[in-house]
């Protein structure tokens, strides 16, 4: 009861200060950590609130003493300075009491941390790979793999002076083209790693974030209690489009998840039959693949960024022999990632054909999925 009362008082105080700041509606102002939807996030939220209350109480006490002193012990009120300049008792007291408070805080903190680190007994494993600037998800036991990037609508609006009002887009910068679908009430092991620089995979509703580090694999776990859509973002600065690689989880009941798995498997098989495509098909698919995977560095018109990312328009690779072009896309070079693990044969064939026949480039040849397959 008393905690509830305190909660009401504190939120009342915050509401008042909010009103003073702006006079606007409280609901529009996000204020606190989410309680989340996992056992971990509930514990983390509780721990956060406990510590927040402790420091608030200490703050009120310490600031209260300071304020009392400032108002009463002033020369203008005729205060005469006392002469004391130390007190061993006082100093020992205010060393011991903080130590006791800290120990009291360390106990629940340790328990929560131990709970969070129990990654064993998972029922399924999701591998998350950070790329500049998108996420790749591999369902290790289910054989599903896809790349998830900022949704096109958001991407268009976030371009400088795009003329599109971000307020017209629901969940601006928190929409992706391929959301992750996960079952509820399942212990899921989540592995994080990266291909280029360090990223950090963070969905607040799960209660933690963890860095995705090239060459290393971190393991974590989650257990989502309620179906819903949970959104997050990359939390570690990873280059120019760090702010534009969101995460979306659709948590669904187990049966629905099983159906989604079937559908996704069929979709992936259909997308990668290896059959030849026409020039129009290649160019159309290539444009989409280019804007999702290549345009953030090589720029939408293939002009590149001087000193950082080479132009494709008129480049030796994009206008030279197709074999070298395929090799570069498959295996990467320096900052350029190896796309062989991210894109299928049809995607790579299409994007190479597109690059060789767009802007000022007019090689005129077609690269087919079979060529890519042969080069892998």
């Amino acid at each position, binding site marked *: 009861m008393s905690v509830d009362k305190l909660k009401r008082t504190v939120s009342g105080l915050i509401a008042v200060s909010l009103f003073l700041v*702006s006079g606007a509606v409280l609901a*529009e*102002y*996000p*204020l606190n950590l*989410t309680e989340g939807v996992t056992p971990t996030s509930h514990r*983390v939220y509780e721990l956060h609130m406990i510590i*927040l209350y402790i*420091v608030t109480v200490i703050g009120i006490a310490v600031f209260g003493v300071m304020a009392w*002193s400032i108002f009463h*012990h*002033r*020369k203008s009120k005729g*205060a005469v*300075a*006392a*002469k004391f*300049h*130390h007190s061993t008792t*006082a*100093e020992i007291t*205010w*060393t011991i009491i*903080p*130590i006791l408070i800290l120990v009291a*805080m360390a106990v629940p903190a340790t328990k929560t*941390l*131990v709970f*969070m*680190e129990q990654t064993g007994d998972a029922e399924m494993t999701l591998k998350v790979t950070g790329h500049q600037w998108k996420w790749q998800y591999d369902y290790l036991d289910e054989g599903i793999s896809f790349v998830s990037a900022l949704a096109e609508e958001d991407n268009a609006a*976030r371009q*400088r002076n*795009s003329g*599109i009002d*971000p*307020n017209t887009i629901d969940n*601006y*910068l928190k929409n992706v083209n391929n959301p992750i679908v996960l079952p509820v009430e399942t212990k899921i092991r989540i592995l*994080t790693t990266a291909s280029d*620089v360090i990223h950090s995979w963070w969905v607040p509703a799960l209660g*933690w*974030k963890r860095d995705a*580090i*090239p*060459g*290393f694999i*971190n*393991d974590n776990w989650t257990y989502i209690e309620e179906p819903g859509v949970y959104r997050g*973002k*990359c*939390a*570690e*600065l*990873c*280059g*120019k489009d*760090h702010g534009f690689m969101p995460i979306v989880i659709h948590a669904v009941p187990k049966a629905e998840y099983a159906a989604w798995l079937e559908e996704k498997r069929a979709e992936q098989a259909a997308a990668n039959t290896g059959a030849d495509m026409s020039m129009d098909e290649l160019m159309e698919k290539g444009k989409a693949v280019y804007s999702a995977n290549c345009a953030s560095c090589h720029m939408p018109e293939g002009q590149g960024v*001087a*000193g*950082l990312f080479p132009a494709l328009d008129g480049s030796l690779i994009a206008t030279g022999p197709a074999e070298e072009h395929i090799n570069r896309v498959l295996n990467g070079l320096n900052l350029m990632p190896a796309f062989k693990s991210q894109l299928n044969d049809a995607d790579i064939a299409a994007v190479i054909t597109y690059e060789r026949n767009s802007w000022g480039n007019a090689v005129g040849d077609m690269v087919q999925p079979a060529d890519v397959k042969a080069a892998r």
Partner: protein
Amino acid sequence: MSYAAVHDDDHHDHKPTGIGRWLFSTNHKDIGTMYLVFSLFMFFVGGAMAMVIRAELFQPGMQFVDPQFFNSMTTVHALVMIFGALMPAGVGLANWMIPMMIGAPDMAMPRMNNMSFWILPFAFTLLLSTFFMEGGAPAGGWTMYPPLVLQLGNGFPFLIFAVHFLGISSIMGAINIIATVFNMRAPGMTFMRLPLFVWTWIITAFLLIAAMPVLAGAVTMLLTDKYFGTAFFNAAGGGDPVMFQHVFWFFGHPEVYILVLPSFGIISQVIPTFARKPLFGYASMVYATASIAFLSFFVWAHHMFTVGMPLTGELFFMYATMAIAVPTGVKVFNWTATMWKGSMTFETPMLFAIGTLFMFTIGGFSGLMMGITPVDFQYHDTYFIVAHFHYVIVPGIIYGILSGVYYWLPKWTGHMYDEKLGKLHFWLSTVSVNVLFFPMHFIGLAGMPRRIPDYSTQFTDWNQIISIGGFVFGLSQLILVWVVIKCVRGGEKATDQVWEGAHGLEFTLSSPPPFHSFTTPPKVTDAMAHS
């Protein structure tokens, strides 16, 4: 100059004139002035970058700059503020005050003093010239984490060598301060009679000597990784990108105390003066400062809890971090006890000192929260941490520096500053700094990551409030420039003691003090030191 007239008559080294006075200066006061002016200039350079950041974040969508340039702004803002504004301000105050506070004529190594200052403009020319290079200015964060930092274009070696130069400058400054305090104290000025500002600076200087070479080593490894084919931080070559973070933060956490301890020292001088009461618990203040400095070498990994350490590692760094709250608490309680039953007046230096006391403590609370590992998994890399370290740095460290500037400005110039303008500066800054940084706690908790140039629309209102606070705070600092210029030009004559409650050797000298502070060492008694 009455003191100089009496004691300086058999010297021929009269104050040099013209540009040579500054270029070839070996005088602690002139070099101190150059450090402080340089620091003020860089404060506005870094502040201008913050204004670009806040303008871009005023509303969602990209309006003014590209994401890459935005990242350069956050990165270089931090480098300029830390290495260009805060550290030189601390060294500048040390230069001006330490010889006067310990009864010495000058610093122990005046030519090295000159060199350690003049390295700074060159270092920042290197750093800021990267804005005009192919590939642009550093944009991987001031923490320079690989592999991202290795993607920088032609500016990369300039960044590395700028950091090397800054490190060399700091180490020379630190050696000079240690040599001065250890060798040039007046008779009777024992270590436990040193003013707290001198104590905090000795400890800071040892931290600098211990920490800066570590940073130099870390960035040298980056350089060889980029150009000489080593793989210290490249997993594909058997290296470890996380090792850089360990090495960097082994420097980085002591660096936090390098920045803050001088400010702690300043308010330990200012609060007793205006409370007209001796500092409470002098000895425990010294020990608490030393403990904080010692512990600062054992907590570095709390900056990187999310990299995935073993459970035991996470627990160790959590407990060690929490332990720092104890000596820090002692300091806060001692300052409060110094004010308690005093006879306080609230001139501008006291206002800024009390500002430090309140708002550094707020930063301390959020710091304690982030020391709790499991919750830090949520707080890490959000605006909550941005709020935390800005509370520590701006109304904590910078307020401490401002308190010192207002406190000693009459001593330096011989004139009282304009008290009304000083108070206006304080109140405008204090209201705006809280409007600027307090809401960052809320948006951080609600899920806004740091270092992003554009955000989801739910954060719009807070960001607008924050930006307005930022613009007002930035403009308010122009008042400081006006106060300083006005005070240098003239004003009411300052007495030698300047403040009614002021004690210490610096206040036995004339205002302004003679060119060579103490040519005859004063005798220091216990009553003088602790009154």
